């Protein structure tokens, strides 16, 4: 049993690498048609491996599984890679969103297929690497890889004029890089080693018992760096423009999982290491409130379908930050489950956007109207994503939000919990406006002859809606399973 468990972590690194090599080895003409299928296969493999790994690891009861591919892992001070329950769950989410993106990409991406596959693998490697890293510097390196890969994916299909969104993403990432590197440098200077094991509030306080200014500065810079990557409130400016100029398949990846792994996972690590420092959790909570409020308010006034979805992602990241800020295991579980449910309903929404773009040619919601009649599947999928995002009970979104609210209330932040509840009515507001303008409102004669989208996008919409509803309905079973492995 443990042999399989030890083998599984290798899949997450070997599979994308092998696919990358295969993608470039086979001559371009034949590879063109299978490139996206290959990336879909890799995503599916990762998803399966993560599920199997999670089950085995939970059953085996071992905290984590260390591995170093060619080297022994027990050398002193070795920066090995490891896999634990949190990272396995996030790897599962990565696989799930990558699969959804591949399904959409099969329809929407018709040129540069090989390059898309290459960058898809690079992005996958970046994210997997971040989740497997055991020290802050490796985490930063893989963060940069994810950043570069997603920048190129965004800028890939645009003419020189359309590079504006990608350019904004690049400049903001550069700012994040500067801050994170200085933070890491300050930390390294103070503690001598960046491995998770050595770091921790105790290590930081050192002999004198209280933190000196530089360590506070380091933490502040690290938090703002991850905030930019996560698209938290004051730093979210790049997200909508990046989404508007990126292809829909890339948008699914970007808002479905990249901002979660690059941003939220960073916060998970920080709170895990320096959680008992009240300032860290307070600043994450403050970011959370600002993110939800700004995201929702801005989403309410947009006229482009994907910008609304982008701001909605910004807003939902706020809830994940809330879960992390609570600091309790229940909060962490809530945040992770919200990562999964957000991935599910955001991918649904974006595949809806892809369908609309394919069939109508435009994504300006002012020109749409009453499409429920012509495009019932897309309409139904958008309703499931609305209900799950707004936290309407039978859907997955509600349960994860509920856990986050309970953890916030138990952490003593009653005001924040009430604010989260109040702001979720804003979530409902902008989704209802979207429904009214696009699907539910009076019919626009211009789209009378529009037919429903076919192929993989319809399949992905149906599967994703089923996941949204299914995860919600059998959530009590998930709770029982989590209790059996002692997480709640």
């Amino acid at each position: 049993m443990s042999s399989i468990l030890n083998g599984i972590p290798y899949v997450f690194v070997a599979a994308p690498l092998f696919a990358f090599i295969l993608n470039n080895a086979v001559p371009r003409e034949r590879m063109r048609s299978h490139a996206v299928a290959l990336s879909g296969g890799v995503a599916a493999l990762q998803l399966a491996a993560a599920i199997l790994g999670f089950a085995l690891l939970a059953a085996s009861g071992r905290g984590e599984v260390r591995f170093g591919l060619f080297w022994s892992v027990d050398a002193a001070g070795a920066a090995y890679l490891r896999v634990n329950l949190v990272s396995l769950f996030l790897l599962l989410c990565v696989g799930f969103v990558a699969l959804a993106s591949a399904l959409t990409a099969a329809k929407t991406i018709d040129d540069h297929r090989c390059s898309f596959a290459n960058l898809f693998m690079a992005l996958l490697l970046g994210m997997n690497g971040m989740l497997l890293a055991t020290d802050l510097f490796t985490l930063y390196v893989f963060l940069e890889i994810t950043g570069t890969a997603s920048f190129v994916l965004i800028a890939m299909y645009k003419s020189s004029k359309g590079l504006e969104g990608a350019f904004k993403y690049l400049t903001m990432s550069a700012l994040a890089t500067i801050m994170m590197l200085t933070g890491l440098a300050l930390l390294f200077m103070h503690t001598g080693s960046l491995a998770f094991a050595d770091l921790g509030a105790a290590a930081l306080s050192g002999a004198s018992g209280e933190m000196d200014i530089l360590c506070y500065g380091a933490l502040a810079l690290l938090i703002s760096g991850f905030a930019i990557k996560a698209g938290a409130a004051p730093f979210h400016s790049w997200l909508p423009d990046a989404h508007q100029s990126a292809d829909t398949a890339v948008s699914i990846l970007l808002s479905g999982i990249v901002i979660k792994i690059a941003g939220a996972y960073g916060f998970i690590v920080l709170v895990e290491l320096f959680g008992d420092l009240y300032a860290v959790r307070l600043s994450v909570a403050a970011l959370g409130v600002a993110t939800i409020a700004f995201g929702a308010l801005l989403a309410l006034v947009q006229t482009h379908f994907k910008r609304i979805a982008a701001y909605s992602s910004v807003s939902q990241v706020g809830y994940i930050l809330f879960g992390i800020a609570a600091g309790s295991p229940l909060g962490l579980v809530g945040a992770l489950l919200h990562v999964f449910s957000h991935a599910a309903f955001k991918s649904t929404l974006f595949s809806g956007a892809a369908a609309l773009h394919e069939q109508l040619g435009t994504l300006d919601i002012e020109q749409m109207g009453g499409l429920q009649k012509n495009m019932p599947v897309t309409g139904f999928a958008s309703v499931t994503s609305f209900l799950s995002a707004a936290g309407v009970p039978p859907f997955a979104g509600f349960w994860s939000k509920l856990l986050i609210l309970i953890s916030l209330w138990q952490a003593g932040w009653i005001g924040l919990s009430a604010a989260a509840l109040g702001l979720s009515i804003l979530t409902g507001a902008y989704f209802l406006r979207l429904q009214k303008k696009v699907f539910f409102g009076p019919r626009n004669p211009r789209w009378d002859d529009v037919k429903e989208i076919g192929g993989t996008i319809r399949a992905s919409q149906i599967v994703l809606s089923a996941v949204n509803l299914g995860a919600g309905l059998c959530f009590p079973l998930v709770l029982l399973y989590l209790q059996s492995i002692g997480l709640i």
Partner: protein
Amino acid sequence: MIVAVYICLGFMLAFGVIAIMSDGLITAAITLAVTSAASGVLMYLLGAKWAAAFEISVCSGLVTVIFISAVSLSSGDKTKLPAEYQDSRRTKRLPAVLIVAGAALMCAAALTGFSLPAGDAAQTGLTFGETLWETRQADVWGQMIALITGTAAIVVFFKESENR
């Protein structure tokens, strides 16, 4: 030793400002090379010899070569920045802001008694090879995947699109 450090910092600041301000791509490339060279010297002064070696050889050397070759290969009119990127209003105030920020940082460092670490920081017993291969295995992965991503990115940008 402190004076040399401040000189290098001064060089870096000045040439950095010129690099941002200049309209010509070539002058920008050259001044960027000088900035990275100054940072290399600074690292050497602060005792990070390996890092200094890499900095000078790779950043100021190789990168500058690539920049200049790319600029010279492309046709003549590309040397000037396209019109819409020239933000005249901003260029006036930038140097003043940067110099003031530099001065502020310096006196902040002075105030908090920021002391330079001892010249030759305690060298860990390991040689460069050992640190890279034994303790920093994850970095090997990191470098490898970074190279892959870089090549994939370059391939995308400089390739004629297949079917257009």
